[in-house]
């Protein structure tokens, strides 16, 4: 068991060594873009404010009466902040595919050596999966840190009455995108990210189908993914079947969707295990 864990940690570290350049690149873009937003947008606001106050001979109070004070809200909905988030999401979807295909199509065909390592093949699977999990959460953590620092920077550029200050939890509630990425309710946060990582497991299974059976496998994999999607969303059909929106309580509907997601996750793991063990051969 101890040996097995040691191998697993080594595998995870190995995968991390291959991923960290990509991760740090995305993190670098996030920090740079966010910083630009934290500096440029408040400066633009203050310049506009001074210009308007000068032209219309307004006092600060008069200006504030007719114009909204600045806050982290316009920064949080700008491309400087939302752009890196989109980049991170697309990047990790791409990386979730790349993390497997690089083994076959990289400089060296590494998959053979990987599968020859005297460890359970599922350890390879879970090491890659854990990499995605660590990568996503580390980006989220960096975004939280960035917003916290951003609030300090912006509040030092836009002073006094021109600025409405919000703490970090409030900033996350201002923006619809952040409400999805950082749900304020713990159960929603946990549930939505578990379902998200189940989707990664399904994607891995589709890739293994393709690697096992090539074109036929790709078709099977896509079919499997669509079936999983329908299965997870099927509780939403229950009101339609019974012609009653209230046949299930909202809590029951959420629990069913979550439960079905976990079932899909388990099936994906078992299918992946079968494919890795019997169909992907050295």
């Amino acid at each position, binding site marked *: 068991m101890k040996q097995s864990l040691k191998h697993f940690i080594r595998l*995870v570290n190995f995968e991390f060594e291959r991923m960290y350049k990509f991760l740090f690149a995305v993190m670098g873009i996030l920090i740079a873009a966010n910083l630009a937003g934290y500096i440029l947008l408040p400066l633009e606001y203050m310049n506009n404010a001074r210009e308007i106050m000068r032209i219309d001979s307004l006092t600060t109070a008069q200006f504030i009466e007719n114009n909204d004070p600045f806050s982290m809200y316009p920064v949080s909905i700008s491309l400087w902040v939302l752009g890196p988030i989109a980049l991170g999401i697309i990047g990790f979807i791409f990386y979730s595919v790349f993390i497997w295909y690089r083994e076959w199509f990289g400089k060296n065909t590494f998959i053979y050596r990987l599968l020859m390592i005297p460890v359970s093949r599922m350890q390879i699977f879970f090491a890659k999966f854990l990499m995605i999990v*660590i990568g996503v959460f580390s980006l*989220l953590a960096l975004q939280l840190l960035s917003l916290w620092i951003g609030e300090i920077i912006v509040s030092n550029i836009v002073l006094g009455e021109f600025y409405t200050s919000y703490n*970090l939890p409030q900033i996350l*509630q201002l923006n619809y995108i952040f409400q999805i990425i950082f749900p304020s309710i713990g159960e929603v946060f946990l549930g939505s990210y578990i379902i998200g990582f189940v989707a990664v497991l399904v994607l891995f299974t589709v890739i293994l189908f393709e690697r096992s059976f090539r074109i036929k496998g790709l078709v099977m994999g896509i079919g499997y993914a669509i079936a999983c999607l329908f299965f997870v969303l099927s509780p939403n059909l229950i009101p339609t079947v019974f012609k009653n929106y209230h*046949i299930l309580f*909202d809590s029951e509907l*959420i629990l069913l969707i979550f439960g079905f997601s976990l079932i899909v996750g388990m099936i994906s793991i078992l299918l992946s295990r079968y494919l890795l063990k019997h169909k992907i051969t050295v």
Partner: protein
Amino acid sequence: MSKYAKLIGITLFTIVSFCIYGIAKTSAETTTNLKIETTEGDDTYADSFNLSGYIYGESNTLLPTFHYTDGAFELKDESSFFEILDASIYLTADQLMEEHKSFMRGKSPYAQFKVEDEKVVYAASDTDQYWQETSTNQLNVSLLDKANDEISDYTFSLPEDSSGTSLESVRNFYVQYPMVYFTLLTAESNNSSLYKIYSADLSKETPELQLVREIDSKLSTVDSLYSSLSESANSRYLGLAEINYNEYEMSVDSFTIYDYETDTLLETQSLEGIEQPNLLRDGENLYITSPSENGLTVYQVDTSAEPAALSPIFELPASENGPILPAFISDNILYSYEEHYDSVALNYSIQINDLNTGDLLYKGEILGEDSEPVDMSLIDIQKAAE
């Protein structure tokens, strides 16, 4: 160990960041607790009503819903996640969800419920429960016996002579067990809408809907005509009126009172000079309230005369804060509320007056625990169970 430095570093960074965020979130959470501060009268009346509504947050987003029952506020946000999901802003539906959850399965919280000491009756059309382009013309009725939690379900179809009629929704119903009377909004084949009164005898083995009467197509039901709150008590009277629309204003010339028990229609005297009339029912008695320059005037409706005569009972003096709006009348006591906006918050006061004398029995203001105004919206007010 150094070969794991980057992995350990990034993992620690992630865990520590989320932990700090969690702590910051918990310490930043400010629960807006509410209280009712008695400003005048006997504070024992503070337990005689229930409230529900929303509290607004700093970024003008709706925050927790609140319920005020048994003299205490409960913020729904403080319940578990799954309780929040199943909670309803409407007091009746929420109370039934807590006390009789199995009865509420399949029931729309926005439909009609009549709650009595021993029974709960629910009525809704299929369209109320599941919107369909073509109505199935079915009315679903459910009866709960509170004593033994026994549920009896009935599904009624419109009578056979209703071809061309499409059932849209249940607008009102009255229970005089075993008889139940329904006011249904129907769509007719000539594209008009019509209110029709049907009855059913639930004591029969196979109860059926019987058409009692069609209401003049010019008339509409007047529940919550000028008020955002509606009465939910089981009343034998149905308020109807011809509503005139002039640009952005509504007006009514007179009310027509339908008596479910006697199947009679009675028109009131002209409402000329009576602005924004609200019809309130208290058992066998009917009242009309109207905002006036000096406050709120309450009229008693004398149903023994034809047309029904209105006699002013008393006038509630206007408040410096804003208009007084009637909520309901129960046991000869008028429950009303004031809604006033002071550029910071929309806040409310509850006022209770004796209907016979007009005497103020109670007035209380809804405030935060720190006695500061709280920006909120009142959705429902009802008589508390005794």
